[in-house]
Structure formats: structure tokens, C-alpha cells
């Protein structure tokens, strides 16, 4: 009796193990046997685009996601190599170039580089010739206002100083974004290293904005906004609208304040240690194919900021326009001065 049951236990466990191995192992085969490993922001590349690439090149694409540049950077410096294409933002692209972590881009393999706009390349001062990075998307965080609750408001950063809206507003939990907004509102550079300007920005946030904010939040604010709990939020358009059903989009006014502010430029890079360098080039080239890039823009309702021809091909209206970004400034790596930003952020975020 006993031994039978024992045997049964082991048999059952073994079957379970083999079954899971088989189920998860089976899906790993493709015709060419090649696998392209991407490391990307969550949902940043539409699945339809990935599927088209897989079909056309007969390869398998495996995507891992990161939630912040810091996560990604930790992973890559810690020896997590093996990714073929990674999508860092401008400051981390710069750091990775400086630290010699990237493979050079071979322009002869990416004819579609000709579509990259000069607007994007002017901003990418750390790599204007695309030697190590190819721009993927350039955008900025803005302000979303619930029009059914709020009717009369200023369409610039001073909305956060509006005491009538106190307790109904939130800003991102991101030092460079919030301090950058204040700096831009005061007419300074978002990457300033002048302590006097920073002190002014700190004073503005602490005395005028912070008392009206519910919190600094980068994760849950869009849910609160869709619930009607928050009326005015600072955030990324795609994240905010993703929480809302399309029929409610009319209730929302999303705008980029004309005073300017910080913006980001995400690039595609090929880290050292990549195994499929050719395939990675093909992927980058594929992304910048006009109809494919338009598909990406349509998915997120983005304006065509880095691509010269996709604008005409896309079908959906974007949440903001390329022209809105004219006054915006990239958040460059401020190097050792970042500690100063962090110190100020501590007083904003944690000291009451």
C-alpha cells in the first residue's frame, strides 16, 4: 500500500514537471531557429508590429520589459547581457555610450535611417550622427484635465498653483520631471546646474504647487484620474488615456504647457554582448519603415516626432502635436550634479 502511494507521488510530480517543461519548451522553435531578444519599456512596441517582424524574417522575438531606466541599467551593468536591442532614454543612452557599453550602428544595414527627422537629431546632442543609437520616439509628459469637473483653468504649469483645485491634483514621482517643469516655468533650462535657479524652482514647488497636490505618483494616478478622484494630473498621455475607454476621451483636455518643460528621447541601441547583431540592425530598420512606424504611432496616438514620413500615413489623431514640443528641452545627463537634484527632491518629496 504505502510504497504504491509513494511511487504515485513521485510519478505525479515527475509527470507535472515534464509537462511544464514540454509546454514551455515547445514554443521556442522557429524555422530559422534565431531568436531576437528585446529589452523594452512595457507595451512600447505594439504586438502587431512584433508579429509582422517575426513572420517576415522567420524569427522569434522575445521581449522583456523594464519599468525604469534605472532597472534596465542595473540589469545591463550587472552582466545581464544577451539582449540584442534595448530602448534607453536620452540620459542613459549618453551614459551607456560614455561607458562603452554599446555596439556601433552600421548605417549601411539601416537604409531607413534617412527617415529620421533632423528635429530629433538636433536634440540628440550626445549622438547626433547615430553612431550608437537610433531614435525611437521623442515625447513629453503633459497635463491632463478632467473637463467635466474643471471648466476654468490656466493651460500652463501655473494650474498646479490654483488653490481651487487643491486636493484634486497629482504630479509624477520623478525629480527630473517635476523640478524640470518648475525650471521651465521660471524660464530656466531643465538641465540647469545653477544652484540659485534650482533653489528658486524648489521654492516654487514647495510653496505654490505642493500644498495643492494630493501626491507625487507615477503608478496609480491614471487610475485615480479615470475614477474622477483626481481632476488634474501630470503624466504621459499614453498612460493616462490607456486607463480610459475611448468614448470618454472627449472629457479630457491633454496639453503640453507652452512654457516648455523636459522631454525624453528613447532610442534603440545594440548593447555589447548582443548575439544577433545583424538581426538587430534588421529590426531597427524594420521599425523605421514608414508604414510600420505609422502603426506604432497609431497604437499610442503619438505625433511623428522622429520620423519624417510616417505622419502622413497614420490614421489616428495624436494627443499632442510635434509643434507643441518646440519649446521643450531634453533632460540631459547632469552627471555628478544629479545628487543636487536628488537632495532638492528629498525636501520636496519627504519634508513637510
Amino acid at each position, binding site marked *: *500500500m*504505502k*510504497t504504491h*502511494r*509513494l511511487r504515485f*507521488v513521485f510519478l505525479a*510530480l515527475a509527470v*507535472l*514537471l515534464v509537462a*511544464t*517543461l514540454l*509546454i*514551455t519548451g515547445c*514554443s521556442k522553435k522557429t524555422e530559422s531557429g534565431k*531568436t531576437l*531578444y528585446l*529589452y523594452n*519599456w*512595457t*507595451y512600447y512596441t505594439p*504586438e502587431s508590429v512584433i508579429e509582422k517582424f517575426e513572420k517576415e524574417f522567420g524569427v522569434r522575438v*522575445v*521581449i*522583456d*520589459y*523594464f*519599468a*525604469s531606466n534605472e*532597472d534596465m541599467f542595473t540589469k545591463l551593468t*550587472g*552582466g*545581464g*547581457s*544577451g*539582449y540584442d536591442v534595448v530602448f534607453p532614454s536620452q540620459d542613459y543612452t549618453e551614459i551607456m555610450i560614455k561607458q562603452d557599453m554599446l555596439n556601433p550602428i552600421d548605417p549601411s544595414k539601416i537604409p531607413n535611417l534617412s527617415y529620421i527627422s533632423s528635429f530629433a537629431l538636433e536634440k540628440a546632442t550626445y549622438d547626433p550622427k547615430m553612431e550608437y543609437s537610433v531614435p525611437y520616439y521623442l515625447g513629453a509628459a503633459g497635463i491632463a484635465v478632467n473637463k467635466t469637473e474643471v471648466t476654468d483653468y490656466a493651460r500652463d504649469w501655473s494650474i498646479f498653483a490654483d488653490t481651487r483645485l487643491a486636493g484634486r491634483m497629482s504630479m509624477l514621482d520623478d525629480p527630473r520631471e517635476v523640478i524640470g517643469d518648475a525650471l521651465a516655468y521660471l524660464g530656466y533650462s531643465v538641465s540647469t546646474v545653477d544652484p540659485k535657479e534650482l533653489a528658486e524652482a524648489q521654492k516654487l514647488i514647495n510653496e505654490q504647487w505642493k500644498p495643492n497636490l494630493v501626491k507625487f505618483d*507615477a*503608478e496609480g494616478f*491614471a*487610475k*485615480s484620474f*479615470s*475614477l*474622477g478622484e483626481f481632476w488634474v494630473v501630470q503624466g504621459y498621455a*499614453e*498612460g493616462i488615456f*490607456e*486607463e*480610459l*475607454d475611448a468614448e470618454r476621451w472627449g472629457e479630457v483636455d491633454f496639453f503640453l504647457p507652452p512654457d516648455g518643460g523636459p522631454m525624453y528621447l528613447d532610442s534603440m541601441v545594440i548593447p555589447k554582448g548582443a548575439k544577433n547583431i545583424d538581426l538587430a540592425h534588421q529590426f531597427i530598420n524594420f521599425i523605421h519603415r514608414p508604414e510600420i512606424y505609422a502603426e506604432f504611432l497609431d497604437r499610442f496616438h503619438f505625433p511623428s516626432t522622429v520620423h519624417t514620413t510616417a505622419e502622413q500615413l497614420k490614421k489616428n489623431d495624436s494627443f499632442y502635436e510635434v509643434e507643441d514640443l518646440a519649446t521643450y528641452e531634453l533632460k540631459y545627463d547632469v552627471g555628478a550634479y544629479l545628487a543636487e537634484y536628488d537632495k532638492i527632491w528629498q525636501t520636496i518629496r519627504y519634508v513637510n
Partner: protein
Amino acid sequence: MTTDVEKPPQRNGNHIKHKLIPSKLVSPPSGPQGPYRLPKNQHFRDHRRFGFSNIMLVLVILFLFAPLFVVITYSFNAAKGMRWTGLSLEWYKKLFFDSNELWRAFGNSIMIAFSSALVATMLGSLAAIGIKWYRFKARAYIQIASFLPMVLPEVIIGISMLIFFSAIKVQLGMFTIFAAHTTFNIPFVFLLVSARLDEFDFSIIEAARDLGATERQALFKVVIPSIMPGIVTSMLMSVTMSLEDFVITFFVSGPGSTTLPLYVYSMIRYGVSPVINSLSLVLILGIMILALTLRRFLKTIAASS
């Protein structure tokens, strides 16, 4: 040695529960006296409806399960956000037909959980038996060292493993996650199986040896069957801990080895999709079914040993 010995009366599960639980409280657990039983109709306290303990019970259950109910309710919401617009199975449709990435992560999690739990259970059980069975010099040190992964903060284990793996040039991926999970599971298995062995009467082994069993036979036919419930429990514990681990996995995962917790975490910036709510219900149901079947199963093993 099983069949001819008088069998404990086969009734319902209750008597087994009594046999199992008080045996930890009352020191001579098994042996000739037979299973220990609580006298009938004896309760520790009278049960008033609004007594302190009942109120606490309700509060604790509410605290533990209310969040789960919220998640389950919203998994049937038609809208994307938190505003309730109506009943719908849309997110379930999406979960089952349109979430390849999620299922891939889930598959990775399951594969790692079961393989690392199996290996950790084998190693941990053997270690526990070995340390109880033999007396040797470094015994106490091994015991202490094996608890280290349990008391060290996960971040430290994660980082040190990451550095270790890149120092010995192992490609990060499924294998490194498996190795890491096995490592942190072993102490728990060791602890649980040791506890089970504490109740084990080692004179049975002497008897077995006396009757002509070899050392190996004594191990496989006497010791392991009688601690089987402990082994299965620790294996289940390991599966659970491996499934839910985030910190260590974050550090040692590599290309193509995203597990479910990593996947869900990476969504937070973009807004966690309601598909996760529906996955939660599927997981809760799956685990409940698994737990119920295993409970019956564990009882059978306990009864037969």
C-alpha cells in the same frame, strides 16, 4: 512492516488531524499508546457570538480577503479603469486569447517553481536527514550556514548572486533563476523536514537494521515514507515561494526569462491592465483546487505511514 501492523481505524479525516496536530504539542508523539485524541465535546472556550475572538476573526478575514474580492469584482468590469460600467467577460477573453506575453511569463514561473522546488526538496530533505542521522564535526556549522539565505535580506542575496553569476560567466536566464530559487528554498525545506524528523523515533531505524535492512533500505523504506507529509509540505512551500519571488529573480533573470511577478511589475508605469485582475481569479481558483486535492492527498499519505 506495514500491512500486518494493526491499522488505525479508518474513519473521516478528523481523527488524522488530531493525530497530527497535538503530536507537536504533546511530547511523546506516536508509539505504543496510539493516536492522541481530544475528549469529545471539549472546547477550550465557549463561543459567544460577539466574543472578542469572533470579532477578531471577522476583522482578520476581512483584512486578508477584501482586497482579493475587489480584484475579482473588477475583473468582471466592462471598463478599463476603476469606474464600474457593467458586467463583462472581456478581460477573460483577452486573458485566454490575446495575452501571449503573459502566458509565457506564467509558463516560465511555473517551470522554475516546480523544478527548483523538486531539486530543493530533494537536497534539503537529504541534508536534514543526514544532519539528524550522523554525528560529525561540522554539523552545527552546516546547520547555521544553511539558515543564512533565510535571514539575509533578499536584495543582498540577489546582488551577490548576480555578481557571482557574471563572475563565473554564466549567461543569465532560466538556469540562473532556477539555481537561485533552489538556493533560497533549501533552508525552508531543511527546516520543515527537520521539524518532522524531530518527531521521528530513531529506534525504528535500529529495528529496521536489526531486521536486516541495509542503510539505504532503511532510508527509502522507513525514514522517507514516515516523513513524507513533511517533504510534500516543504515542496509545496518551495513552489509557492518560488512563484512569488520578485527581488532575487529581478537580479538573476536574463533575456527571455521574465517570470510572472517581473512581468506584472514592469507594467506599473504604464498602468496594470485589468487582464491581471482576471488572471488573479484564475490563479486563486487554481490554487484552491490544488490545495483541496492536495489536502486529501496529504491525509492519505499521513494515514498510510
